[in-house]
């Protein structure tokens, strides 16, 4: 197996056992990017010199018996809204052209502190909204990889890096992961610090992870999760050992969300998802249909009113100076946010609370709720696809994860989305790993 094919856990293990040099791994991934990224355009910036220097230091440390942490010498990528000290961070926007942060986002810093090497920054839609990134889907270059974490999904799927940081305010981490045949996690709101991440919403921005297996996500989450005093939304909830949780996988109790989700998916997506559910049942899972609470009906509208208002508040000063530099979609979003009445903003926040409260008894009855991850496979063109199946979990903050479950007739990957209660990522990952065992991992796209 070529080093670029190794997942996060396997690469870290190979380096720890001195079966693989960090220098060889970084070189293999940079070579891979040089060969295949031209038409994919996952990378906004590759830090070739910095990554090679870090790899040499990691190799030297290893030779002296010094292990920097669980990711010693393993590269990762960060969406270009994550601050990276000394590296250009432009958020996919002319508004931020040439911006070089002086510090790392907390998630970046924690991965580095664990021994990880930042290989580079991957493309995002403008400020993680709708104006698309140039990135294409490695499974079919005519298709979007999804967004806003477009480069994160494409880079991991194309085996240019084993794990990437993404973000989700509406549907930006789980959806592109699914479109590209990956595992993608949006943890509980507040589980991973958002410090140093260009903001879109004060109460819906989540840092997410994308990798090619649940095990790799578990290792990544163990490293980046946890309280950060510099982030007011960060939770003090203790961080369990997510890798250890995977040893407790067993057939889960699944609540199936047919209404709204299966009804709004294409017949093909509903059929593939139904087939995946049948395989989970045959393997021992318990599945029951679940009814959504009344407040679910208002989650879509509430989420968008909150985001538009927050985005305007966050961008108001930059907009006043540089309105013409914003691309059309985010500019319109900012302008619309100025017009939303305060009473309806607060009412939307109250709907969020009611939805959380009304759904929790249902979540308590099951290990996970299951939906198709997306309404369709990755669409052709530049638009990044329909995020509606992620919106309730982005609004409420409940954690969600996608695992691959099959393919469309056109050969594009599809996924199932699993949802659980607040701060139950450990059992969520265990259930996802069990589903992954049954459904299988997606193979590499033919590039």
């Amino acid at each position, binding site marked *: 197996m070529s080093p670029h094919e190794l997942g996060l856990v396997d690469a870290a293990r190979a380096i720890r056992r001195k079966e693989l040099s960090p220098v060889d791994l970084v070189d293999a991934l940079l070579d891979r990017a040089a060969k295949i990224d031209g038409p994919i355009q996952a990378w906004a910036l590759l830090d070739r010199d910095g990554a090679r220097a870090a790899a040499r230091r990691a190799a030297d440390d290893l030779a002296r018996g010094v292990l920097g942490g669980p990711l010693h010498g393993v590269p990762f990528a960060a969406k270009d809204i994550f601050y990276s000290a000394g590296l250009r961070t432009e958020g996919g926007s002319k508004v931020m052209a040439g911006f070089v942060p002086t510090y790392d986002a907390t998630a970046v810093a924690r991965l580095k502190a664990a021994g990880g090497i930042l290989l580079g920054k991957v493309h995002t839609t403008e400020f993680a909204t709708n104006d698309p990134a140039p990135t294409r889907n490695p499974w079919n270059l005519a298709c979007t990889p999804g967004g806003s974490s477009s480069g994160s999904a494409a880079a991991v799927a194309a085996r240019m890096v084993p794990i990437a940081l993404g973000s989700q305010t509406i549907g930006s981490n789980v959806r592109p992961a699914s479109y590209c045949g990956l595992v993608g996690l949006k943890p509980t709101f507040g589980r991973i610090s958002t410090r140093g991440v260009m903001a879109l919403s004060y109460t819906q921005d989540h840092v997410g992870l994308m990798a090619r297996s649940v095990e790799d996500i578990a290792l990544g989450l163990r490293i980046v999760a946890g309280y950060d005093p510099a982030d007011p939304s960060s939770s003090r909830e203790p961080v369990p050992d997510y890798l250890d949780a995977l040893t407790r996988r067993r057939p889960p109790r699944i609540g199936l969300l047919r209404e709204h989700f299966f009804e709004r998916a294409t017949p093909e997506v509903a059929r593939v998802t139904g087939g995946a559910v049948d395989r989970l049942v045959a393997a021992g899972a318990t599945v029951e249909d679940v009814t959504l609470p009344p407040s679910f009906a208002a989650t879509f509208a509430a989420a968008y009113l909150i985001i538009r208002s927050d985005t305007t508040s966050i961008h108001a000063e930059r907009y006043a100076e540089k309105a013409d530099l914003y691309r059309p979609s985010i500019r319109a979003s900012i302008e619309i946010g100025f017009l939303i009445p305060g009473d309806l903003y607060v*009412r939307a926040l109250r709907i969020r609370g009611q939805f959380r409260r009304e759904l929790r008894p249902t979540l308590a009855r099951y290990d996970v709720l299951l939906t198709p991850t997306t309404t369709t496979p990755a669409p052709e063109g530049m638009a990044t696809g329909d995020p509606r199946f992620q919106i309730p979990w982005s609004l409420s903050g409940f954690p969600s994860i996608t695992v691959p479950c099959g393919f469309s007739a056109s050969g594009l990957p599809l996924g199932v989305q699993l949802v659980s209660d607040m701060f139950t990522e450990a059992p969520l990952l265990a259930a996802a790993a069990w589903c992954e065992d049954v459904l299988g991992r997606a193979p590499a796209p033919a590039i």
Partner: protein
Amino acid sequence: MDRDSLHAGYASALRAEAERRFGAARAEALKDNIDNVAGWMAEVAMFPVDADEPPAFYVEPAP
């Protein structure tokens, strides 16, 4: 008031405010966005939120 009437009323008010803030040309460019937001506003306004439901911001662990 029914949802469609509320939607239309919000759209009209948003359009007027957009013209005042950004000018007629920009308000016209925002026409579709205004219609979407007016729909969301109507949806949120008409949803029967529990009277004692407070706004929810961050997430705290279950007690």
